[in-house]
């Protein structure tokens, strides 16, 4: 959710679109400002769209400080400001987040800083977590095979990035070397199947019991 473009304090729940010479300008405002500017009367949802549009045109003509074009420019400026906002850990950009509503990693919450904080504050009940917390200590991982495969996959990621880089630099000898290493690691990882494919379900517990009964009788 975004903030009202006029008061910049309340959440914008009213969205007004204006098309001038084929260009679409959008105004996002809160009900209070809409009321102040005479854009809508009472509940926005109840107002008729045409009536609203008429009022809007009138308001533009009457009010000197409400200039859609100016606001639109401001919005564009804001967009430019956030154009290079990007998470330093996973590379997700602010724009990508705004597009699909999903952050890329835990670090995004720190990296997007104030902007994401504002969004969370608007959409959530509060801004500080209360409720379950994780335990102080987490048992160390004991399965060496699992840890090993996770490390191998991490290395694979690194080498793949290196491969892209060497191809970009046209260092083909090094690229070939990296490619061979990737093939070797992939082969090693392939030996362990995550979940064995089962074509039929395992024997249901009922049958096992039936067998037991037969044995005892």
């Amino acid at each position: 959710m975004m903030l009202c473009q006029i008061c910049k304090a309340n959440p914008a729940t009213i969205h007004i679109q204006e098309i001038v010479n084929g260009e679409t300008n959008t105004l996002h405002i809160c009900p209070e400002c809409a009321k102040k500017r005479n854009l809508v009367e009472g509940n926005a949802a109840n107002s008729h769209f045409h009536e609203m549009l008429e009022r809007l045109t009138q308001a533009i003509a009457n009010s000197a400080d409400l200039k859609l074009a100016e606001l639109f420019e401001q919005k564009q400026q804001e967009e430019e400001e956030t154009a290079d906002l990007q998470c330093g850990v996973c590379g997700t950009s602010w724009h990508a987040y705004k597009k699909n509503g999903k952050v890329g990693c835990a670090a995004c919450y720190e990296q997007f800083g104030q902007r994401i904080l504002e969004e969370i504050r608007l959409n959530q009940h509060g801004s500080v977590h209360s409720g379950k917390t994780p335990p102080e200590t987490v048992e160390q991982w004991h399965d060496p095979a699992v840890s090993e495969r996770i490390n191998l996959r991490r290395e694979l990621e690194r080498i793949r990035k290196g491969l892209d880089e060497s191809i970009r630099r046209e260092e083909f000898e090094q690229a070939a070397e990296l490619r061979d290493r990737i093939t070797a690691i992939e082969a090693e990882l392939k030996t362990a199947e995550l979940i064995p494919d089962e074509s039929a379900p395992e024997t249901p517990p009922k049958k096992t019991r039936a067998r037991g009964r037969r044995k005892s009788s």
Partner: protein
Amino acid sequence: MIFHPRIRHVAAKGPVFIGQGPILSTFLSLSRNIEGFQFPATASANILESVAELTLAAMHHEDVHSLLPSMFQIKHELLTSSDRDLLVERELMDHSQTDIAACRVFVCAEDGSTSILLNGDDHIWLHMTAPGSAFRETWDRMSTLESALARHLRFAFHPRFGYLTGSPSLVGTGLKITFLIHLPALGLSGRRKRILERLEDAGLAAAPYFPVEGKAAGNLFLISNRTTLGEREEDLGLRMTEIVTAISREEERTRAELINRQKLLFLNACGRAYGLLRNTYLIPTSEALDALSIMKLGADSGVFRHFTRQDWAELLLECQPAHLCCSMNMNLSPVERGKYRATRFRERLNGPEAAPETGDETET
């Protein structure tokens, strides 16, 4: 084979939509991510494979495994679209997480009470269902499972934002509580829209369970929380339980009023719904759900004495597209589904036990 044998097995289990009165069931889902791994939306298949392996290994630890008896796991890509539709109809899978994606793993209890999706919108999505209004018991069960997993997996957590999730709309507790509620009388009285709209003030949202052209077929609604940050899980759950119970009481009060004032009209509606379902040869889902809704209203009010909540909930699931395909074990066109659905209703309702006991309606 259009259905995975495991999923057919789950489909054969009884439904959970059998609560006493208007509140039919409670669904809880909890989202968690593992620290140090990118979230599924941006992570490579490689990372997600590590996440799946770590989580599955944690789930096989004795203390976690003892909480997950009779669980089976399937790679998401091995589930057909019919399997996934069926799981959505049973509320074991989320609409938004049905797409095939890298390293998704679906874990499910054979009784259909618990399901877990790995690498959906978040690394881990725990989901539990229970009949009736049952927040407290279900949350206890879920919290125990989460705590057991947290002993072996370090979840992404921020002291201010709480548990970190792919979508900031779940950040904090990561908990989504949903109640399935049946509101036919409030719908007839015309007050339902206003009551459901007012939920927004309480930070809740209502959505149709089976939307048909923007309306809720069968008068069934899902009420869930919109916020997850700043309120303790128990507080939210109890607050929601109170609100949903109040709506349910209002529904019951309206039902009583409706029956007292317009008994003949009410009996007429029940008899017609029964007659339609009993004699139909071709019926679409929305029409079936609307008729079933009136049958439930009648059953709750004692008109259909031998038509139990269990019978009703079974028919509610059986008449839905994926369940019909599952019982016939083949893909069906909408017309074929309409035909088999009608056959199912005729078979189930043709015995004398389902008939309405209207009493002496000439009195009214």
